[in-house]
């Protein structure tokens, strides 16, 4: 049963500073919760890699190839000569390919988002409802009472309005 120290701040700058201090003090990756995206997180907490890009790319490639295969393959499965045109033609099939590329690019992006942000959340996670309104929170995992009081001290020193102890996972 791990506990989490959660500090509520009234503005993003102090929250970010507190997170930086916690990271420098040796705590495992602190998390910031906010109602709006905070600028400057990557400078303090380290760069973030986004794997969504790869999902989009592969999705789009799959969609493109699949779209053309769908159009050209089905044209051959049941041959229907129309309008004196060849049954496998590029002008119309490129349009199908284009649409399928975008469709699968979009779907793959969503999948990538869900996977990389770990959605949907099955179990309860550390949360403070105030962060959806106008407060900024910093949380960090603590193993025992000692680390918790150290974390709480750092948070209060940085200007936290409130420090909570939240037990995760039920």
């Amino acid at each position, binding site marked *: 049963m791990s506990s989490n120290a959660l500090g509520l701040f009234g503005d993003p700058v102090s929250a970010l500073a507190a997170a930086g201090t916690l990271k420098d003090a040796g705590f495992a990756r602190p998390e910031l919760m906010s109602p709006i995206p905070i600028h400057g997180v990557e400078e303090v907490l380290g760069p973030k890699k986004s794997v969504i890009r790869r999902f989009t790319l592969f999705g789009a490639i799959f969609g493109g190839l699949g779209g053309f295969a769908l159009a*050209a*393959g089905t*044209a*051959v499965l049941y041959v*229907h000569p*129309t*309008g004196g*045109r060849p049954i496998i033609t590029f002008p119309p099939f490129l349009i199908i390919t284009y649409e399928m590329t975008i469709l699968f690019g979009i779907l793959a992006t969503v999948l990538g988002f869900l996977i990389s942000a770990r959605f949907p959340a099955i179990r309860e996670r550390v949360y403070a409802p105030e962060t959806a309104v106008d407060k900024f929170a910093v949380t960090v995992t603590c193993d025992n009472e000692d680390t918790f009081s150290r974390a709480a001290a750092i948070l209060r020193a940085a200007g936290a309005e409130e420090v909570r102890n939240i037990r995760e996972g039920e």
Partner: protein
Amino acid sequence: MNFIDRFVAGWAKYRKPGYYEDFDYAWTMTIDLDRSSGCGACVTACQAENNIPIVGEEELRKGREMQWIRIERYWEGEYPNAKLKFIPMLCQHCDAAPCETVCPVSATYHNQDGLNTQIYNRCIGTRSCAVYCPYEVRYFNYYDHHWDAPLEQQLNPDVTVREKGVMEKCTFCVQRIRQAKDHAKDDGRRRLRDGDVQPACVQSCPTEALNFGDRKDSSSKVYRSMHDPRAYHVLEELNTLPSVVYLKKVETHAD
């Protein structure tokens, strides 16, 4: 693998322009405008042969006539020097038909006889083929039609009666072509000869202005008519490659 072979074969066979020249037959109709008197026997015969509905006076007034072959009339000049010109217009069975490519469900396509066919069962009634046809020879069933007794006894059992929501047009009496091919097979002959099959309009024309046959058969009447110096296609500049050849009326200047 089987699918790959089919894929390559299909792509190769239908790749070059003019692949329709390799089809079994190339049914062609020639219409000699010099001989055509505008009597309308072809229209009546078509209506009888193909179960074309009688739309009624009110529908006609709304502009929903149903005639797979129509006699177009154009007036020139004023009374007393008014001249009437007419031209029978029917589905041209274009080799490069604009209507075929647009059907989303493939209800119309070019079959191995060179005919532009309409598959009533598959049609979902988007009516885009009628928009794309520059000759405007496609007709839509706006209602379910019924025939007052005893007219329903006159219906041709070889031809379906179309339900509402389905597009229809001249088929060059494909039921007669099919029947002629069956007879030819029974007789041991593999190929149809000139004169074996005549659509209803051709059969009923009193002046023999309409001729029908296979233009791949160089001994047929249509082949000779096609190469007449008077021969032309309607809206030739659109490059639809129609299978109906018109023979221009020779104007007399006797007045």
